[in-house]
């Protein structure tokens, strides 16, 4: 059996852990974001892109998070499907709206960056299209869960959808390698090191860490909400039967 983290296997331990971890991640996110924005707005303009280079400090983290959150959703769905962990299912359910939000940010900020640099708001190239597909998978996951009254059936169906949708992650990642795209190739997280100058690299890294910390905080808060919702609905059912 794959050893799940202790807090994933025991709701009481998870609630005790997340009570202090969620605000801690939130504070870390604010500090990292302030440091990243400070470095980002003290950096000079790019010699080719001018001031639009500052969109990079919020676009790359959003794009990275759209994939990272989906990976978290897929792992939680796998644990939920195989080990029937209620907390893993709550974690998957809680991740979906956050991932959809980050994907909207990746698409919107990318479009606002693309218009002045590429001359178009949108192009159906492999990277943009596969990220749009990721957003639609998030929406399908949320809609599927909402459409089934039976929570157990909803969890199983959504977990299967999440695992099938995970096929899209390597497609997004390698889309700029496999196809000719208007979108540039990997420039930060790539073999051989970053292609960015340090003056742009460090603000991006700090903002990625800030986004990850904010996701950590919001994810824990949402899982806590799910745990309370399930407790409340179980109690309501018991009260109705009594």
């Amino acid at each position, binding site marked *: 059996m794959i050893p799940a983290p202790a807090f994933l296997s025991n709701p009481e331990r998870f609630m005790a852990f997340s009570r202090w971890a969620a605000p801690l991640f939130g504070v870390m996110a604010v500090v990292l974001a302030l440091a990243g924005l400070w470095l980002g707005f003290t950096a000079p303009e790019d010699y080719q892109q001018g*001031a639009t280079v500052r969109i990079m400090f*919020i676009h790359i983290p959003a794009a990275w998070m759209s994939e990272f959150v989906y990976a978290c959703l897929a792992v939680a769905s796998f644990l939920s499907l195989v080990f029937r962990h209620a907390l893993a299912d709550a974690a998957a359910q809680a991740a979906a709206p956050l991932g959809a939000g980050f994907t909207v940010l990746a698409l919107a900020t990318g479009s606002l960056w693309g218009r002045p640099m590429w001359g178009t708001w949108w192009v159906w190239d492999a990277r943009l299209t596969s990220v749009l597909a990721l957003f639609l998978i998030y929406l399908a996951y949320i809609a599927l869960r909402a459409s089934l009254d039976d929570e157990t059936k909803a969890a199983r169906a959504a977990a299967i959808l999440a695992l099938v949708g995970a096929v899209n992650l390597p497609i997004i990642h390698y889309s700029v390698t496999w196809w000719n795209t208007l979108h540039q190739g990997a420039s930060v997280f790539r073999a051989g090191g970053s292609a960015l100058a340090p003056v742009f690299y460090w603000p991006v890294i700090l903002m990625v860490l800030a986004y990850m910390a904010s996701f950590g905080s919001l994810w824990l808060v949402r899982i806590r909400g799910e745990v309370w919702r399930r407790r409340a609905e179980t109690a309501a059912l018991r009260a109705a039967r009594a």
Partner: protein
Amino acid sequence: MLHFETGKYAFYVWPAYGITALMFAVLIATSIGHARRWRKRAESFSRK
């Protein structure tokens, strides 16, 4: 020295930051709101 001047690209840079701030505000508000609402309901059942 902070460089807030974005010149002819202001129409693209500031909306990008605005949308990001708005999305974070929505995610924070809905996450905390959802957790608080269900915590209150769960606690009201446990008191009964």
